[in-house]
């Protein structure tokens, strides 16, 4: 599967400052009568990559979508509990989900560039949030974002070409660049590599590691190797519960909970 040789060796990276970026308390999510997230408590650190792992349907995406209130767009979804970003309750009435989403960017499972030019894809967010006064400002933002997404060199000569014409890996990096362009503080990624080939996956993983210096990154992944490679913290979800949350190295070498252990050794799938 992966091109990178992986021997499940966990680098013990130094985890950034221990500033808590997102604090979730007693979060419940219901889809109609389905109780999809149960009593989740978690503190996500700034300048850190946090991985969510767990079997399919355990609620990883659902919880991730709580963090930028994307669940608001699903009419039957109902959220209870308390989620704070930088100490501010994001479900407070006064918080505009639209502004929140500029601050908490999201990258989806399948690359979803708009059917517009590469330039327009990146400029979309800054335009709607009024981040650039002049065309020159916008050019700067676009270039900067594409550089951060490690895509600039590949596309700088064809910014007017359609974004949908790029390869899958390039499209996903374009989507990352698009998310970065609104100047977010947090980046949420829902299985960002599951539709990519191994080479593109490696490029995106490398990018995620670089993004850590500027953002708090939360990534949902099905690949435990990927979680081990890119994250410093790992949360294991099972049947809507957050079973275990700890340093990635700890989760993969010495998990506390028997369910975590059976999952990472492949007994729960």
């Amino acid at each position, binding site marked *: 599967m992966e091109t990178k040789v992986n021997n499940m060796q966990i680098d013990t990276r130094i985890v950034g400052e221990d500033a808590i970026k997102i604090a979730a308390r007693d979060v419940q999510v219901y889809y109609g009568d389905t109780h999809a997230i149960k009593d989740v408590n978690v503190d996500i650190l700034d300048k850190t990559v946090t991985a969510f792992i767990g079997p399919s349907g355990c609620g990883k995406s659902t919880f991730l979508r709580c963090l*930028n209130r994307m669940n608001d767009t699903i009419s039957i979804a109902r959220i209870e509990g308390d989620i704070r970003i930088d100490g501010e309750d994001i479900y407070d009435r006064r918080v505009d989900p639209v*502004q929140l989403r500029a601050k908490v960017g*999201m990258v*989806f499972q399948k690359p*979803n560039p708009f*059917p517009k030019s590469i330039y327009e894809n990146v400029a979309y*967010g800054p335009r709607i949030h009024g981040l650039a006064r002049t065309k020159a400002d916008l050019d700067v933002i676009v270039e900067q974002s594409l550089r951060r997404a490690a895509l600039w060199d590949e596309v700088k000569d064809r910014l007017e070409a359609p974004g949908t014409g790029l390869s899958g890996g390039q499209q996903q990096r374009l989507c990352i660049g*698009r*998310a970065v362009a*609104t100047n977010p503080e947090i980046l949420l990624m829902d299985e960002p590599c599951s539709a990519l080939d191994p080479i593109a996956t490696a490029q995106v993983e490398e990018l995620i590691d670089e993004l850590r210096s500027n953002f708090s990154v939360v990534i949902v992944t099905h690949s435990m190797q990927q979680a081990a490679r890119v994250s410093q913290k790992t949360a294991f979800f099972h049947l809507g519960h957050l079973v275990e949350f700890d340093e990635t190295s700890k989760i993969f070498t010495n998990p506390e909970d028997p369910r975590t252990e059976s999952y990472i050794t492949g007994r729960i799938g």
Partner: protein
Amino acid sequence: MPLTISISIVLIFIAVLAAVGFVLGRARALSVANGAESGLHSLPKQHGWHVALSTAVPAIILIALWSIGSGIASNIYTNSIIDPNAPELQLSASVTDGLPEAEIEVRLAAQRDLFVASIKGLKTAIDGYIANGNATLADLERWRVDFAPLEARLREDGQIIAASISQNMLDAALRLRSFDAAVALTGRVAAILLSIAGFLIGLKLITRDFRARISVERWLLSFLIFASTIAVMTTVGILSAITFPTLAFFKEYGLFNFLFGMEWAPAGDVAGRPEGADGSYISALGFMPLIWGTLYIAFVALLVAVPLGLSAAIYLSEFAPSRVRAFVKPALEILAGIPTIVYGIFALVTVGPFLQAVVGSTIMPNTVSVITAGVVMGMMLVPFVSSLSDDVINAVPQAMRDGSLGLGATPAETVTKVILPAALPGIVGAIVLAASRAIGETMIVVLAAGALSSVTGLETNPFGAVVTVTTRIVAVLLGEGSGFDSIDVLAVFALAFTLFFVTLGLNLLAQRIVAKYREQYD
């Protein structure tokens, strides 16, 4: 007395034989298998079907082909027995006087066609007369036109006779009658023999290894291919039926005169005779005023339908709660199911008078006008535009919405900046289809656009009455005094032909646009 077998008896015979074939085939398959069904290649049932199909299908195909062929044969036969010197084929000097040679040729050919048609009509009438039990076959031998007023007797019996009957006509009709009877009898006997042959061969073919399953599949496949061919052939048939008169019209009136003529004034039943020396026609048959009226109304209709329909589609697909959607979507579809004549009445009795009351009768002398027809046609098209646009908007992947909302765009920004641009080609396709419907629409314009029988030039006042292509087709065919062979009627074929190509072109265009748009997400 000649033998006759009615077609229904033949069909019943074939059906019964096929049913027997099914039962026998199944039984024979079972006996061949010696009770061990698993030894057979195909199920006993399939063997039964195979026998039934080989009994019925070739015979029925023969009957169908025979009936087409015998029609053609009786035409040829009729033409061959007509005496070329028969007085019915001649034109009187008063008619030919002053006509050019080519025109006389055309008239003679028409005269001949008419005579052939009369013979066939008389033959049908006699058939009906006998079937009603008014005469025996023996009587036929003694019939003469003047023997008793034959025409009066036939009419009294309810038979339809177009021309007055002459002795030549009667003789030909009687000969045609016996010819047709012989052809029909041969065909029916052949069909019965063919079904018996199919029955026997089908039964004989049954062995342990016979692949009845595959044969039955083939029969089924051929049937499906046949059914789809019929649809295509119908289109071809319609097209050829309007093409020949159209070409005749273009030849006669001039393509250029037709397409760019600014006046529409069919003269009635003058049969397109050039008026005097300068060779110009009494009928003015210019296309321009008609297509102008048609496009003008279609434009107004789109002006109404596109904004309303598109907004409804956006609301329904992007904003409406599911409860509202569940109610409004079917309601719109019901609107789409209202017959257009109802819209026409609505336009005539409600919208027209209302508009006239609002703008005053100096601007709007009649209740019928471009606006009246256009607005109501627009209403009619709203559900059409909205349901097509709804489809294309829904086809924009959810990932586009998520992507945009995830970047902090509002739902309205998402619609205007991402969804509509992405759906635009599909929406354009929907609009083009709506335009093509507007152009071909008949009932509303017949009632609400105006019924001027002649126009010159292009009406620009939107509150003025216009004529359209479809209304003129209706008017001329419902006979504002035109004979069916007149140039006016030929012109109608040209109108239908042109209309066909305009709407065909629009539909092809729409299809191309929509297909291109589909590729984008595949």
